[in-house]
């Protein structure tokens, strides 16, 4: 490569950088029922983390995504239409949607996908939306926050104040990975997105059996057949305890609810449960009290102590 070419490429990449800096990244935050109404610590830490890495989050008048387990199982068209109504809210402001929950991601992604791929669906949804004066053209994209964070690994490292040094068991949850059409570039049997992020925070990601398996709560089973949901969770927690994890890190408030409340119901496990946003918040030096971590059913006190110790070592 000639010197001139190299200079030209450098110039281009600098120009791109300037362009990126000029237009700040913006998304409409779709917090989802569980984060905003049951685990505000997840919503709070998400807002802190995204602000620190320079991504603006907007608010819109969203309903429940609606939850895929119950609503899609009862009536698919209702699920699709209400999902699209949510997308219209962001669409009106010309922004894309950022989800922090696999359920919301799955619902909204699928509603969008079903809408785009079939004319029959487009007609059905728009006929329904017309009744409340809305319409949709399919131009909004739905993103999962883990994917966006992964693109900003350098910003995460730059904002990290504490090398956490925790041994974490990653729980992906089903509807991030599957159906794999959502992520053509990720191997659903061997993903490496959340691993990269926790490693950037100074954590060790543990390997364990059935790491990519279900938490047991999806498909309406959490509310419809609790015994089945808890048996699946028990099996999962056994595998996590076997490898000596300090905590379970998830990317879905519904899995979070199942992992946290489910352990309290089972009474046989007590591994602290952290949403990825909470873990990053801790590494950014946010005090656990400011994140309302005490709202977790399984105490996070041991984690807080370890983080405090790691902070002293970092200082």
């Amino acid at each position, binding site marked *: 490569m000639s010197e001139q070419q190299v200079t030209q490429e450098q110039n281009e990449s600098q120009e791109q950088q300037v362009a990126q800096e000029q237009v700040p990244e913006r998304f409409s935050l779709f*917090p989802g*029922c*569980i984060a*905003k*109404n*049951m685990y*505000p*610590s997840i*919503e*709070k830490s998400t*807002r802190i983390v995204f602000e620190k890495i320079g991504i603006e989050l907007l*608010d*819109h*008048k*969203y*309903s*429940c995504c*609606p*939850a*895929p*387990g*119950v*609503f*899609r*199982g*009862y*009536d*698919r*068209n*209702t699920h699709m*239409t*209400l999902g699209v*109504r949510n997308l219209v809210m962001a669409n009106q402001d010309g922004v894309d949607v950022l989800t922090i929950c696999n359920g919301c991601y799955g619902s909204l992604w699928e509603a969008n996908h079903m809408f785009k791929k079939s004319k029959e669906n487009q007609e059905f949804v728009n006929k*329904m939306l017309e*009744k*409340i004066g809305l319409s949709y053209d399919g131009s909004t994209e739905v993103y999962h926050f883990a994917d966006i964070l992964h693109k900003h690994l350098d910003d995460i490292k730059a904002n990290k104040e504490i090398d956490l040094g925790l041994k974490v068991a990653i729980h992906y949850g*089903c*509807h991030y990975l*599957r*159906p794999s059409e959502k992520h053509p570039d990720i191997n659903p049997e061997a993903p490496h997105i959340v691993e990269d992020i926790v490693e950037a925070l100074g954590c060790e990601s543990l390997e364990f059996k059935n790491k990519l*398996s*279900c938490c*047991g*709560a*999806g*498909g*309406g*089973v959490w*509310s*419809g*057949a609790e015994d*089945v*949901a808890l*048996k*699946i969770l028990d*099996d999962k927690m056994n595998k996590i305890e076997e490898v000596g994890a300090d905590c379970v890190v998830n990317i879905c408030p519904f899995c979070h609810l199942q992992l946290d409340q489910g352990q309290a119901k089972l009474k046989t496990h007590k591994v602290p449960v952290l949403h990825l946003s909470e873990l990053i918040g801790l590494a950014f030096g946010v005090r656990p009290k*400011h*994140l*309302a971590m005490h*709202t977790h059913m399984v105490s996070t006190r041991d984690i807080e102590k370890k983080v405090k110790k790691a902070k002293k070592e970092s200082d």
Partner: protein
Amino acid sequence: MSQEAAVEEKKKDEYELDEFQKIMDQSNILKCVQCGKCTAGCPAGRESRIRIRELIHLAHEGKDLKDAPELWYCTTCYNCQERCPKGVDTTEAVIFLRNRAVRKGHHNFPDLHVTAITSLRDQGDGFPLSPEVEKIRSVIGLPRKPIDLAHDEEFLKDFQKLIDELGILDLVKEAQAQKKEEEEGEEDE
């Protein structure tokens, strides 16, 4: 059977055939070779009596699944669908079968499902906000009430209009009424 009843019966059969055809077309279940890979990787199958292979087989044969409780044990984890060597959309098939069971009005609805549907219709969220969490939100510097549809009367009213138009709650109520009627019928016998 009177002629009228026979015509009614035939219409019902045709409707059911149509529905099955739709399920098969949309989820490729006719391609199933009953290899069992779906069941082998099913987390719910290890802990309950759901067998995805069997559900697909019964759907394939046109058997009625309206009263099968195991239809509701699937967590929709999509392991089976991802791993199916014949490209059958097994999880999608389960969802179609559930929708059909609801339409047929024979499903034993778990109370919490009905609560979630009612809560979505009335409050815009499947899991509504509690006064306790409202307080915690304000303590950690979030808006006490989230900026959302649930806390905007006008948006909520429109949303309720939309959901009533879609009729999901009517489906549940009809199914519950039918179930009650049948149970009373059984008691009489």
